[in-house]
Structures are given as structure tokens and as C-alpha cells.
């Protein structure tokens, strides 16, 4: 049985540039990469694939449009997960994908995954948006069970035992294949590929396909902006006693204390 690992082309949020005055975010300028939690999903897939006796394939549906820059970055991100031990990758890219919401993306991914895979591993949320909606939506599209927030996965015959981390307790569930599972960062420590593994990964099969939206999106983003935080810029002077008193007073007025 083959495993599909969903790898999102996430914005490198550390390199996002923001215009402080207008709140504008320069999305186009920011580089992209494979999200960190996707690396956990990849690690888990590499570990599980031996037990399941099949292949593990990365699937990336890029929402970065179709520019040469984004294409190159997408391939680099896939090379990285391939270097960790995946057997191949599918890259779906095209004009219009950037407008896709999770509904569109899930539909398109379902078409790619149905009939081909027995298990889908995904990150609990993507690094840039972290909506965490996609794996659930995909499971719904496929009509497969969905287990979220896995911190441990064990294969037991024709089903898997999944430990889920919830707010106050852990839950252990059993689920039959086929299934969709999202993992957390606690599940494992992703291996760091070696130079030679990256060199070899560049020769692994990478199948690029054109994206065409299967449906119209239900949700469109009108504008992305950083919330503006106005500083009050109050300076409190005086000796320590006095200043502390005034500070407490000011904080009370703000409703902080």
C-alpha cells in the first residue's frame, strides 16, 4: 500500500516583508519552502512505508501561481522531502491555483489520491496559514476517516493505531485503511538529509502536472493585511514610587489590571 504525503509550498514567514505604514504584505517577494510540520509527516511516511510495503510519494499542489520562481522553489522543496527518503513526488501547478480555497484544493487533491493510495499523511496545519482545514476536507471528499493531531502512529495489520494529542488528554484510536491522518510536530524528529541524499533526490521521479480548478472557490481573499497596533506612547516620569503608582493607574484605566 502506498502513502501520500501532502506537502504544502508555504511562504517562508521569517522572510515576509511588511509595509509598516499600510500593513501591506509583500507575498510575491517572499520565498517559499516545504512547511516544517510537513517534514514531520514526511519522516513518519518514511518510517511507515517499510511496514506497509509500498512507496511513499509527496504530493504538492502549489498555490503560488505558475511563475518560474515559484516553480523552482516548489521543486527545491520537493527535493528536500525526497532526500529524506520518499520515493517520488507529484507537483501540481498552474495559473489560477493561487485563488483556490481549501474546497478547490481538496477536490483537486482527491482526484489525484483516490484509487492510488491507502494512507494520506498531512501536517496538522500549514506553516503560513495554519487553518488546518485541508486534511479534513480532503478526507470528506474521499469519504475516508480522518484522524487529526497524531503524536504516534502504529501499524497493526489492516488498521493503524493513532495516539492523538488533545488539550487536556490523549486519545488512542484505531482506524482502518484507507485513512487521512494529520500529524503534529511532536510525533518525531525529522532527519536532516545529507548532501549525497540531496544529490540523489534530484534524480528521483518528479511528476509535474498542470492544475485546472475542478470547481469554483467558495471563498475568495480580498486583501491580506497586518493588523495595525497603535502604540499609546505614554511616558511616565517621576521617582520610582510615584512612577509606579502612575503606571498602575494607567494600566487600570486601560483595563489591563
Amino acid at each position, binding site marked *: 500500500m502506498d502513502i501520500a504525503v501532502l506537502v504544502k509550498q508555504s511562504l517562508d514567514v521569517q522572510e515576509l*516583508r511588511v*509595509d509598516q505604514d499600510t500593513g501591506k504584505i509583500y507575498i510575491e517577494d517572499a520565498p517559499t519552502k516545504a512547511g516544517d510540520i510537513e517534514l514531520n509527516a514526511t519522516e513518519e511516511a518514511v518510517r511507515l512505508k517499510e511496514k506497509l510495503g509500498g512507496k511513499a510519494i509527496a504530493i504538492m499542489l502549489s498555490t503560488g501561481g505558475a511563475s518560474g520562481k515559484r516553480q523552482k522553489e516548489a521543486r527545491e522543496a520537493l527535493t528536500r522531502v525526497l532526500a529524506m527518503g520518499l520515493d517520488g513526488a507529484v507537483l501540481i501547478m498552474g495559473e489560477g491555483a493561487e485563488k483556490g480555497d481549501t474546497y478547490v484544493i481538496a477536490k483537486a487533491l482527491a482526484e489525484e489520491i483516490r484509487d492510488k493510495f491507502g494512507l494520506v499523511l498531512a501536517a496538522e496545519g500549514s506553516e503560513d496559514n495554519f487553518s488546518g482545514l485541508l486534511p479534513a476536507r480532503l478526507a470528506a471528499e474521499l469519504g475516508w476517516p480522518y484522524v487529526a493531531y497524531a503524536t504516534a502512529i502504529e501499524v497493526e495489520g489492516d488498521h493503524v493505531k493513532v495516539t492523538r494529542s488533545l488539550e487536556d488528554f490523549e486519545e488512542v484510536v484505531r482506524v482502518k485503511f484507507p485513512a487521512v491522518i494529520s500529524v503534529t510536530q511532536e510525533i518525531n524528529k525529522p532527519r*536532516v538529509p545529507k548532501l549525497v541524499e540531496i544529490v540523489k533526490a*534530484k534524480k528521483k521521479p518528479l511528476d509535474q502536472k498542470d492544475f485546472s480548478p475542478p470547481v469554483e472557490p467558495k471563498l475568495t481573499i480580498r486583501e491580506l493585511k497586518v493588523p495595525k497596533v497603535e502604540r499609546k506612547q505614554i511616558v511616565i516620569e517621576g521617582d520610582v514610587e510615584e512612577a509606579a503608582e502612575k503606571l498602575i493607574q494607567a494600566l487600570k484605566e486601560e483595563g489591563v489590571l
Partner: protein
Amino acid sequence: MADFDVIVVGAGPAGSVASYLLAKRGHTVLTVERGKRPGAKNMFGGRLYSWSLERIFPEFWKEAPVEREVTKEVLGFLHGERGVEIRLSTRPKGRSFTLLRAKFDQWLAEKAEDAGAEVISGFKVERPLIRDGRVVGIVAEGDEEMEAEVVIAADGALSFMAEKAGLRPKLSKEDFAVGAKEVIELPKEVIEDRFGLSEDEGAAQLYVGDLTEGVIGGGFIYTNKESVSLGVVMRIGSLASKVSEISTAMWEVTEKFKSHPMIRRYLEGGKLVEYSAHIIPETQFMRGVKLYTDGMVVVGDAAGFCVNYGVTVRGMDFAIESARAAAEAVHHALESGDTSARSLSKYQEILSSGMLREFETAKKAVDLMEDERLYSSIPKIAVETLEHLFLVDGKPKENLYSFLRKEFSEEGISLLSALLLGWKALRSM
């Protein structure tokens, strides 16, 4: 059998050019870059002299991400709140372009990749892999060994590769200068208006004066399409002893430079989008550098092919040309199946009959720029002499000759030595 014919350490201009040329000739090339992407962490002042890159990519500026072609050269003297600017408007024969490294280095690295080189970023090379006194590959982070017939060290000014292969002595801070730079965004039209440029034209402006307080160095401004690169360059040796002191000093001088009335007006309303600092190898240390050994050659800044004129630095064109010479030599070595030092000495031969002559001339100019008076006395005298010439206050004016004599003697310079300074300047150009 080695893993690769060639391993190139560093994807700056030197590394990418060497990778490109060797991959194009059918050799297997692995290029290892420690930054997240080629160029991600690289900086320079702002101008590339195009002669050497043009030999490899004729009319490269038509496709490469260059910013503006430099047609305005400004030399400025700053003294206190006052200043003098000398402006040369020209369409120079030797073309030069302003550019931003993050984009440009990535473009060059892509050229290498397209030619077939494997360019891998995000990996640091720890040291050359040496067996029986011969370089046989690299050791990457995580103690991973990778073998190659020839290693090309293109790892920049600090080059641990050259040092660990015994090609250059351990350097001390006197061997370096340091540069700090800010990129300040301004609308295109504003830049063209303030610097007197038409579309695609660019300005290169250098300033010396009391802002560095006697330390050799000064400030620079280069115009990009929609930003200006502004920064300062200073000698480390004379600057301070601790890294923290150096960075504070750099920051203070940059701020002083930016707030000078003559500079401030260029920047008004601009938005600071990037800050970076980098070291610059001083030319003197070249004496102790060897360019090749068994299985390895050193190119670009790593080999010391960088000239620090005091305020401006020139190294990109030399990095590219040295990489071209090295690629030529390495190609021959690989073809002949002999990659020993003797065979690789062809690299030095090619350089000697070409670039090294240009490099020596450039270095001569540096000898002049070593004169500390250029950074303190001359700017002051220039500003005050012009003030003397132009200001009218109704009082009788001292004649120019006696005014100049007074100015020079205040600075402890005889007129004769001033003339000599001028003569040396002319000769070195």
C-alpha cells in the same frame, strides 16, 4: 572514481562562474553554498564593472537582473555640515552597472544549474578533504565526505578552505576592512529626479571627510531602480578591537553619513528595507597567498582578488575573471588526467598574462588611498577653499594663494607634498 569531477565551494560570482564554465564543458560539477539560496546573505556596495562577465555572457545586462547603468560619478568631500560634490556626467566606455546581490547571484547560479551543475544550498563545507597531502574533496557539515578530482575554493574573503589547505596564513583583523550597507526604498521618479538621472541611468557617489574621524574609509551611495544602496567602508585594524565596538562604530558612522545635510536630501521619505555588513580583504595579504595546490584552486575574494580603494571596493569583476581563468586551467587538468599542482599552475599562468596586470594597476591606486590625509585634511581644505572662493560678505578677501597656504599649513601639509599627492593620484589612474 571521485563522486564529481569538480566540487565548487561557494555560489558567489566566482563560484557560479567557475561552475557554469566547467559544467558547460561537460564536467560533472557540484556547487555547495552555505546560504539558504545563492546570494541570500551576500552583499557588496553596488557596482559591477562588466568587462569580465561580458566575456562569458555578451550583453549580459539585457537578461541579468542589473539595476542601472552608471553614467554619473560623484566624488564628495564632507566637512561638518558642509560639503562639496564633484559630478562627472558621462557614458563611459567601460560599462558598469549597479545591482543587488540577492537577485544577481541567484541569476548566475541558475546559469550554472542550467548548464548542468548541481547547485545545493543550505550546506556548509567544513574543510577540504586531504589525503596524503593532496586535496581529494570536501568535508561538509555533519562530517560528510565527498570526493572530487578538483576542488575550487570560492568561499569568499574569510576562506577557511584556502587556510585549511595551507594556501594562506591565518589572517588577523588588520587584513580586513569592514563595510555596512542599507538599502533604502524610494520611488523610481524620486530617485531619477534627486540624482539627475534619466531612466535606467545610475549614479555612483563616494564621500570622504570627517565622518570617519580620520579612519581610512568613507561613505557611498549607489542608485538602484527603486532603491538606493548606502553604506560606509572602514579599516578594521584602526577601528577597534572588539566586534561589538566595530559594529557600533559602523552604525554611528552610517547614521552620521545619512544625516549630513547634503546626503539627507537624497534619502528623504525613503524606507529602510535591508541592513547588512561584510568584511573586505585588504590587498596587502595577497603576498602570502598561493593560488593552487594538488587538487585545489582558489578564486575570487578567497584568493584576495579584491581591491579596497578606501571608500569603494572592487572585487566582483576580479572574482569573475579569476574564476574564468581557473575553469580554463581545471578543464585542461581534467582532460589531461593530471590534477596535480604542477598541472593546475596553468591557472596562475593565465592570470599572469591577463588579469594580474589589471589587478596590479588597481592596487597602485590603493597606495595613494592609503594616505590618511585624504580622509581628513583634503576634504576640509576642499570645502573651505570653495567657501572662500564663492562667499561674499562685503569684507576684503584674502588672495587665494595665501588662503591656501594657511589652509595647508593648518593641516601640516606643505604645498609641495600636496602637489605630490596630486601627482601620485594622476599617475595611479
